[in-house]
């Protein structure tokens, strides 16, 4: 039985709950959606067991996995910015937000 694995960082309501709802509507059993212990564990499930992992396209590229967008659910990750000076964090979140987002996309 194939399973869909979430990375630990996606074990948050605005990702996990959306995925569980979509999985239920698609007829998956509860056991078919799980949170992996770590990205490495998730990859092991995918490579060994033929499961799928919820990841971004850049992540899939890094891990050399085939990637397809999730149908019917728009998912986003939120990121917090931490900096030595709050002033710097504020600028990254503000003026540089678009540039940083582009950088992140290419990671």
């Amino acid at each position, binding site marked *: 039985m194939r399973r869909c694995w979430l990375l630990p960082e996606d074990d948050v309501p605005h990702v996990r709950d959306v995925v569980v709802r*979509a999985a*239920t509507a*698609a007829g998956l059993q509860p056991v078919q959606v799980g949170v992996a212990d770590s990205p490495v564990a998730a990859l092991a499930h995918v490579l060994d067991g033929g499961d799928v992992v919820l990841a971004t396209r850049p992540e899939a590229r890094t891990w050399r996995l085939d990637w397809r967008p999730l149908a*019917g659910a728009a998912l986003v990750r939120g990121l917090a910015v931490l900096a030595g000076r709050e002033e710097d964090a504020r600028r990254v979140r503000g003026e540089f937000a678009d540039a940083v987002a582009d950088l992140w996309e290419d990671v």
Partner: protein
Amino acid sequence: MRALDRVRGLLADAGLQAGVVVRDLDDGRSVVLDPARQFPCASLVKVPLALATLLRIHRGDLAADDVVTVGPPATPADTGLGRFRHPARIAVEDLLELAVTISDNVAADALFALTPPAAVDAELRALGVRGVAVRHRLADLTATPALRVERRSATAGEPLRNPRRRSRPRAVRRRPGERRLGPGFRGPADPPVEATTVPEVVARRMRDLLGGNVFGHRLAPDLRTDASRWSSKTGTLLTLRHEAGVVEHADGTTVAVVVLSASTVVATQQPEAEAALGRCARVLHDALLDDLLDGDLS
């Protein structure tokens, strides 16, 4: 192609011979297994019958609310009016509900009395659908020697099928805003036939009827979810187990699935065969959508 090999294995294990067509109704891509194989279509004939009746109602040849008196049947049938012991008065469009959603043979023959098989056949030709021949009423089909045999005996499943009604796997398309009836499918080498349009209101009614199918033991367990609507007609007779329908996913993806099969096993109840047919439909449906076909769709 792995998906097709897997399906062939599933079918062989279950003692089934099948023809399958799975087609994405948006881009026309399809996966097929033995599409040229012919089968008697059994109750699938109620689909063209319903379509012909709806077209005639649309044109004003028949009145939807015309009430007819039906039965009780001389020979009881499996469902609905076939089990009634008293005459019933039913409107024409309500006969459609019975014929399609509970596969009511008596209701179907009441509709055939209004639109004979040859006329239904002519409607299909006019729509450009080939590969499906409508020649007989349901009573003709069910009055075969095999059905006089005790149902539980070993010979109940002998392939003494009525060879006079044949159909090949075909994709039938009905979508809101999309008025065409899909091509009759005759083989990978033959191009699909463009058909004249089915009026939107007729297509919608047809989808509604098929969406009300109460028989969910064959392909439905593998295709129907909260996020995907499955509308279909099943056909079961002797060794034949068919189902033809359309799955509409929440994201708009629409796939026609047609499975026609004959069993080499002489048992009437075969839950594993039903499950195998559903599994095959799902495997090919997923292979089509996942585009895992290595560029070769047959």
